């Protein structure tokens, strides 16, 4: 039993990290009033970039940075569509998911990256530390991104709540017209928010392939982008609450392959449904529990055109 628990808990962080990173990226976007339904697409782009760079011999960390940059570059398209051309946020997001699914599948197939195992990201500390009984694997068996994630979480929270740029970000998300009147360049802030958020989403996707699956198959992200969107609602757009929620989903995902190993005989495909059903449950819970909660950015999904002020 103790073995099972340690084994389970020590694997949770690497399942939770992509959710945290994706949620942070989404929080940055949505705090600026951009409803980013393209999360799944961003993560796919990051994932394929990570695999591609690893296959071509780039070190794992550089591949992860490349994945983040790829997410940013993909964010340029989204930013141009949403903040530039003022296309409906829902349609833009969906179109980007479709674009990313097709593009990543096409590139990976053409370059022969599909089903090609890569070496992947190693744990940060040597085996001697992580061999310490009980807490060794949990505390010291993780890779660098896992240790880095709380720092990122702290930085995002600090920037959003404590700095001028964070105030501007929130102002744009709450009331773009007022922000505009106060002299904030709404379009620019949204542009930047999407690109920086895209980097986080790309990193999340890159982490999925470089550190977790260590292989590319089409649609490797498997709906985690959508789960992250739900997670942000559950976290009421707060970075620390997103971390907590991500740990919850990490626990569920890490448990799935272990349940069968312990000897519970639940049909396999029903187990694979649980993350999605849990997400639905979480969304319903948030909606009921937080019915009169106003933490959602008031202008989420709305365009800003100065001439359209009513």
């Amino acid at each position: 039993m103790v073995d099972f628990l340690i084994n389970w808990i020590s694997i949770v962080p690497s399942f939770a990290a992509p959710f945290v990173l994706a949620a942070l990226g989404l929080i940055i976007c949505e705090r600026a009033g951009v409803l980013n339904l393209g999360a799944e697409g961003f993560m796919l782009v990051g994932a394929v970039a990570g695999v591609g760079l690893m296959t071509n011999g780039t070190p794992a960390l550089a591949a992860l940075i490349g994945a983040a940059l790829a997410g940013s570059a993909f964010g340029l398209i989204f930013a141009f569509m949403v903040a530039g051309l003022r296309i409906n946020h829902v349609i833009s997001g969906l179109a980007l998911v479709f674009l990313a699914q097709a593009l990543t599948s096409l590139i990976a197939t053409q370059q022969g990256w599909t089903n090609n195992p890569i070496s992947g990201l190693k744990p940060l500390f040597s085996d001697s530390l992580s061999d310490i009984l009980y807490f060794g694997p949990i505390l010291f068996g993780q890779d660098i991104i896992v240790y880095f994630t709380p720092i990122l979480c702290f930085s995002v929270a600090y920037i959003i709540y404590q700095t001028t740029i964070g105030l501007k970000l929130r102002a744009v998300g709450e009331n773009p017209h007022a922000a505009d009147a106060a002299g904030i360049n709404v379009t620019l802030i949204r542009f930047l928010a999407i690109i920086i958020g895209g980097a986080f989403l790309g990193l999340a996707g890159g982490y999925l392939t470089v550190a977790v699956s260590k292989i590319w198959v089409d649609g490797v992200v498997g709906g985690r982008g959508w789960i992250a969107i739900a997670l942000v609602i559950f976290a009421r757009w707060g970075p620390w609450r997103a971390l907590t929620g991500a740990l919850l989903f990490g626990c569920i995902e890490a448990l799935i392959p272990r349940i069968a190993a312990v000897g519970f005989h639940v049909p396999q495909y029903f187990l694979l449904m649980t993350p999605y059903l849990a997400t639905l449950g979480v969304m319903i819970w948030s909606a009921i529990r937080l019915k009169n909660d106003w933490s959602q950015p008031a202008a989420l999904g709305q365009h800003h055109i100065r001439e359209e002020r009513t």
Partner: protein
Amino acid sequence: MLNKATENNNVPISGKASSSEKKRNLQFIPRLEVRQNSPEWLRLLIYAFSLLVGCVCAVLVMYCVGVNPTDLIQEISILLFSGTRTVGSVLAQTAPLIIAGLATAAAFRANFWNVGLEGQMIVGTIFASFIAIHDIGPASLRLFLMAFAAMLGGIIWIAPAGFLKLKLGINEVITTLLLNYVAFNLLLHLLFGAWKDPVSGFPHSAQFDLVERLPKIGWENLTYALPLAVSLVLLIWWILSFSRVGYLLSFVSSNPSMAKAVGVPVLGLSITAIIMSGAIGGLTGFAIASGLEFRMTRDFFSGFLFSGVLIAFLGRNHPIGVAVVALFMAMLVLLGQSLQVFYQVPFALIQLIQAIFIICVAASEFFLTYRMHWRN
């Protein structure tokens, strides 16, 4: 759109980069003005232009993956002019695409972003296959029972998302999409378990009996799936153009709050549209399983969500538009299949082209809504 303020028209939107020093000069970022009305010819022109841009991008992308424009023209002409057989297979592909487009468009009309088409197709087909596998009901009524079950399955799968949206305000894009994954796992559970083909052991259901297949209409290999699709188009066209429901629905889709204010039963109409979308979504699966593949396969639904959104979007949620776009989409799918065989181009290329078209047409909306001023 009409009551938007117009007095601020001459305020630059974001011309800070260059406006302060040099007056009346070209700007890097244009000033936007909301168009008060856009004439029909402009609407058509911009739409046509966006399609043209999409086509150019598509040809470029194909060139990048190694299909020469000359080869492309040759493939297209083979598709169009090599006799009734290819026309037959285009039309056979068109039928489920039309139904998929109608399912998506029905929900989009009510501002319900149903992206759960694949889930609804899967559950609808599971219901229909249940009838087929267990031989429920008299043979003469079997097909009707299957179609009915498929619609029921689709409704069951869209109902939670609709309920959560209307009752709790939960974003339907996320719920319908998550339900796709749930449905897919359910399908795999059945196909790798109880419904595995008893003859071959492959993960697809046993072949449907003859009475459980849509009969052939006697021209090429076409089944009654096509007449079914066409009659659905006509039915929905009639509902939208001539019935009270259609009139009220167009009211709701253009201005929901106004419609609510003057007493249109918005909630009831939304529920109707959502249920219709789910039912037609289930029927899409039935049309494929019973009209094309004659069994429930593991990936019969793949790509239909994609195509459905594209067809509804390009067809402007109008049934006739949907039918026309679906026809083109079927050609594109067949073109993709032949490119896959003869040029080893992955089928994802076709999906990429579809995504490019969605983006182009969505972007064209901008030029309809706003007028750009490049001079200060």
